[in-house]
């Protein structure tokens, strides 16, 4: 049905559309005084990955681990403190101003919250046409009516959606409006930041399927951020696991789900409940004591060492690098 399972190697052939190399991001946490230097929190440290055209990279991690931050950094919504971001081979780490605005035509964002991400005061037509207007492709929303109609059809919205306001739509439909807006500029790459987390199970599938169909039709590449491992499994070609600001494992989807290497990935996978009583009861679950480390006070060494059953002295002192264990499988652990 989709390209993904049959041809995992297909995308490899092409050059990556997006390459991230050694990316680090810091946030200014607070400025104690006007003259004093702001204190900084490291949100991301030394992140590297590639996304190839037409490919979906699933990004999974706990809340606060920095998923959104990666998305924002890649879209150049925040400045990086280190590392490089290459988009179609071009270094975009430091573009800003008008050049950045131009770049927006090629990369877009789909938001988590279908309710808050649409301006309640604008008609659907205006919302979807806005990218075209600000990039000077059309002069008014009316001019783009037909073009927008096509987008609405593509995203499965009713034909009469044009002149209605967002509040007249259900959550799933709103998410489609958001996707239509993202597609208006015909981007090659879309960051989808938890696009289905706020939706009910019964409609979640609609959006996931839509994203998959669009990918097939338009050859889009996705950075698909989610915390729900089951959904990620359905849409991704490859999956990256993020843990408190570091990538701990990145692999081809099936490899990761069937043969996780990092203890954190294992814990994550085992913690996901399966909606089948007997199976669920029979499952062996790894429940590790302890909490997710706090960004402001990251531990030394491997960030997982406090909760890890395999942790040794070394784990608490040295940061394990991300090493390649198989052609498409990298992991950051001293013990694997």
């Amino acid at each position: 049905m989709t390209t993904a399972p049959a041809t995992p190697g297909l995308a490899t052939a092409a050059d990556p559309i997006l390459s991230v190399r050694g990316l680090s991001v810091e946030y200014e946490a607070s400025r104690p005084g006007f003259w004093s230097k702001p204190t900084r929190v490291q949100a991301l440290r030394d992140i590297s990955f590639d996304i190839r055209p037409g490919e979906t990279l699933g990004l999974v991690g706990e809340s606060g681990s920095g998923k959104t931050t990666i998305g924002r950094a890649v879209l150049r919504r925040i400045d990086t403190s280190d590392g490089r971001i290459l988009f179609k081979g071009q270094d975009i780490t430091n573009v800003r101003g008008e050049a950045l605005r131009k770049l927006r035509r090629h990369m877009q964002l789909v938001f988590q919250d279908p309710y808050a991400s649409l301006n309640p005061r604008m008609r659907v037509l205006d919302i979807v046409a806005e990218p075209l207007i600000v990039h000077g492709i059309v002069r008014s929303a009316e001019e783009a009516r037909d073009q927008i109609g096509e987008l609405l059809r593509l995203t499965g919205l009713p034909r009469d959606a044009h002149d209605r306001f967002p509040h007249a739509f259900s959550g799933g439909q709103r998410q489609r409006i958001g996707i239509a807006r993202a597609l208006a500029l015909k981007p090659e790459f879309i960051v989808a930041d938890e696009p289905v987390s706020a939706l009910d199970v019964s409609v979640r599938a609609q959006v996931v399927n839509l994203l998959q169909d669009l990918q097939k039709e338009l050859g889009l590449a996705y950075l698909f951020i989610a915390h729900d491992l089951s959904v990620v499994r359905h849409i991704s070609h490859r999956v990256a696991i993020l843990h408190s600001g570091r990538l701990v494992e990145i692999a081809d989807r099936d490899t990761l789900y069937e043969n996780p290497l990092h203890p954190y990935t294992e814990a994550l996978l085992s913690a996901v409940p399966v909606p089948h009583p007997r199976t669920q009861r029979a499952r062996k679950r790894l429940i590790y004591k302890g909490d997710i480390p706090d960004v402001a006070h990251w531990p030394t060494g491997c960030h997982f060492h406090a909760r890890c059953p395999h942790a040794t002295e070394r784990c608490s002192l040295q940061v394990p690098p991300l090493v390649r264990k198989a052609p498409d499988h990298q992991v950051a652990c001293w013990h694997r």
Partner: protein
Amino acid sequence: MGLFILRRLFQGFLVVLGVTLVVFVATRMVGDPAQVMLPLSATAEQRAAFEHKFGLDRPMAEQFVDFIGDLATFDFGESMWQRRPAMDVIAGRLPNTLKLIAAGLGLAIVLALPLGALAAIRPGGFADRITVFLGLFGLSLPQFWLGLLLIMVFAVTFKVLPTSGYGGWTHFILPAVTLALPAAARLMMLVRSSVIDELNQQYVRTARAKGLRFPQVLFGHALRNALVPFITLAGWEFISALAGYTVVVETVFAWPGLGLTAMQAIKFSDLFLLQAIVFTVAIGIVLVNIVLDVIYKLIDPRIKLA
């Protein structure tokens, strides 16, 4: 905390400095004190002598350097109007104003907290509508009018309270009430709306789900959490009273306070006294702000004093 206070004191110092500079320039433009202070018939020589005595005949820059020098020693020169050190004049008046503010604001707080909480229990209910109306009414009374009215009723007609002046506690009642009513109304409305807000918070639901009795939910949780905005506004009331807004009350009740003195200092173009008053008040405001921040910290553990 100590560091925080130090830093705030330093910032406050800058603010005070800025304020004083503005006042220095502004006061030089107010008018010629020699004309105002001396009788209409004073001769030119007398005027010159006067200006010389107060150093007003020197270039502005020179005066300014002197002024800054004296600032360091809290010396604001002699009040031209009272002919004694400006700081002495203030020392005599400031306590009266502070007492008035304390009485007025204290009364306002005592009125506002229970009434606001009462109104918030059932928004739109009878008690609420009555208190809101009273509150809005209190907000709408011009203070000078209210003061005159109170004097008419309580001092002249019923002769139960003194009409004006400073003295025993009976003298405090009318001015304090006049000062308190609008402030009480503002505070009351704030208490009401923030308690309503707090009562809608999830943690209040938790408290109710715990089976706590309503008074405890109201006073132990909602009202307590409503205190932060309340303190902000109460502090603001204090500051604005300090910043001269007592002058109307002081005028109506012949209250020997700082506001009235400031009015007179301006009337007499008493530069030195004016500078000293503004300086004192600015310091007062800065201090009040610091105290407020510390109070916030005591109430709300989430606030970091940094």
